[in-house]
């Protein structure tokens, strides 16, 4: 008679056999004493292991361990240092003394652990600085039943939240039971400690409401100050404007367009500050440009004022009367003119200063310039290298003013 192999006996013991093999093994065990002895010995091993190892876990301790893991994971996600936890006082059976020890998962603190001794848990209060990180040690439930003779380990039930809070005021800050860190429902967590708020780092630290209000006030103050300074004290102002070329319907516009397409620097008329009117393109300035306002120049000599008055009067006819093709804008009076030598040659690059408002432009290759300015009495000064400057006072109305300057040699 063939005995059962170890694998057959093991499978029979584990109820892994079905059908005919199971019946054959059972019949063989009923008749074979040797196999039955082995079977009984294996059953004894299994029963002993089940009796010894098949205990019920301490749900209270498991809950605390799980809570610690959750706290540690949450702290890690928030960038906080790993919290320290005090060992739960686990009730021991058979009158064994309760043990307090520290976990090895986290670095031990420099100071001696208050839980190293074995005082009553109510006395061993954590230091106030660590009160938020360290969950309070709950005393062992007094209702822990003694182990029954049948070795059914009765796990102590966790204390209710109200009872624990009455004994330990620290638990009042514990989040309500049944809610995990993400708000999901879960079993009560008696060992929860409230995590401190993660400190903000970097740019996030500047996003506090107080800092945001301070930043807004600072920006507003700077904006107001700049505006006030520009208006009152004439702080040089950088203006960038873009304009498109106008229609090329007249000869003067064609001439301007020709000047604009050439690479040489053309006359760039200045624009009044601040208003929408200055942004409108004059036909003489088809390119985008950057204009820097310069301080006004007062007339240095009296002579040009007198001598310039006559030609100014002579050429102060409205441009529309002489060149009706140029569109006139009543709200943007313009001083235009030509700068030539005594021989009638156009002077290119001559500096044209307007006193008030302060403007400075250069003449183009045809010696022409245009300055847009408010109506009134304006002083224009023309300078060119190697030539005597000319200053002229013009009375500008609401129309375009055409004038001509003649610069003589310096000597």
């Amino acid at each position, binding site marked *: 008679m063939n005995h059962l192999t170890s694998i057959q006996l*093991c499978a029979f013991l584990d109820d892994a056999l079905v059908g005919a093999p199971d019946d054959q093994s059972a019949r063989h065990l009923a008749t074979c004493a040797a196999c039955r002895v082995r079977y009984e010995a294996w059953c004894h091993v299994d029963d002993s292991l089940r009796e010894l190892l098949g205990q019920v876990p301490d749900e209270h301790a498991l809950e605390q*361990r799980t809570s610690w893991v959750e706290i540690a994971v949450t702290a890690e996600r928030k960038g906080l240092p790993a919290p320290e936890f005090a060992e739960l006082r686990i009730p021991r059976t058979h009158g064994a003394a309760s043990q307090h*020890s520290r976990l090895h998962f986290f670095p031990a603190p420099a100071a001696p652990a208050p839980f190293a001794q074995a005082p009553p848990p109510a006395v061993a209060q954590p230091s106030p600085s660590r009160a938020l990180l360290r969950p309070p040690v709950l005393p062992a439930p007094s209702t822990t039943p003694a182990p029954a003779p049948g070795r059914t380990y009765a796990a102590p039930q966790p204390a209710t939240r109200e009872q624990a809070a009455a004994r330990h005021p620290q638990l009042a800050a514990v989040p309500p039971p049944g809610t995990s860190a993400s708000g999901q429902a879960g079993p009560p967590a008696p060992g929860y400690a409230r995590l401190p708020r993660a400190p903000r780092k970097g740019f996030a630290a500047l996003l506090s409401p107080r800092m945001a209000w301070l930043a807004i006030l600072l920006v507003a103050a700077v904006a107001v100050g700049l505006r006030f300074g520009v208006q009152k004290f004439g702080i040089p102002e950088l203006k960038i404007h873009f304009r498109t070329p106008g229609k090329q319907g007249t000869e003067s516009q064609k001439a301007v367009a020709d000047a604009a397409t050439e690479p040489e620097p053309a006359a760039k008329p200045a624009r009044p500050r601040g208003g929408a009117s200055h942004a409108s393109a004059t036909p003489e300035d088809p390119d985008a440009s950057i204009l820097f306002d310069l301080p006004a120049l007062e007339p240095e000599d009296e002579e040009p004022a007198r001598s310039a008055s006559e030609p100014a009067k002579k050429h102060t006819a409205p441009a529309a009367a002489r060149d009706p093709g140029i569109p006139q804008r009543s709200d943007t009076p313009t001083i235009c003119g030509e700068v030539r030598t005594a021989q009638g040659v156009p002077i290119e690059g001559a500096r044209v200063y307007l006193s008030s408002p302060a403007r400075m432009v250069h003449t183009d290759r045809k010696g022409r310039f245009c300055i847009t300015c408010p109506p009134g009495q304006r002083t224009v000064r023309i300078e060119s290298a190697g030539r005597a400057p000319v200053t002229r006072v013009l009375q500008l109305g609401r129309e375009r003013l055409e004038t001509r300057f003649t610069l003589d040699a310096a000597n």
Partner: protein
Amino acid sequence: MNANPNRSWTEPGRDPELALAAQRGDLGALFTLLRKYRRELWHVCFALTLDRQRAERLVHDTLLRAAKNLRSLPTGSSMLPWLVRLAAHLATAAARSGTAGAGAEPLSNEALGTPITEVERPVLEAFASLPEGERLLLALDTIERIPYGDLAVIAKREVAVIMNQVALIRARLAREEAA
């Protein structure tokens, strides 16, 4: 003891979904996963350490390691076999370092949480002398009553190998008990 003997340890259930959510930063899903198998994990850790307190520490360590290394969880699989392997790995490492393990200290009633009779002591000492892998395998087979197929999945071995190994372990324990 297995709370639900009919449930297979290898059935993924909602584990992949929760694991995916946890990997995306959902702490609630992560905590649900960690709480789901802590009882089964404790039984495994208790079989590996033969000490209730060490078992709880090992559960803590295993859950913490699992939370940090959740990305290494095989896609679409149940979390419990992975947790068990993780616990066995940690227990083996602790035993090798001599800081913990079933054979680090003599068996005591206090550590086990129950008195040990003279009849049971040889069995338990023989069980404690087994390597961690064999102890885990026998505990899963005897105490948790996990089918051979699931044991093969957990241990990543063939079913025949698992059956042979369990039989050999039982025979060895019976032999040492008789001696």
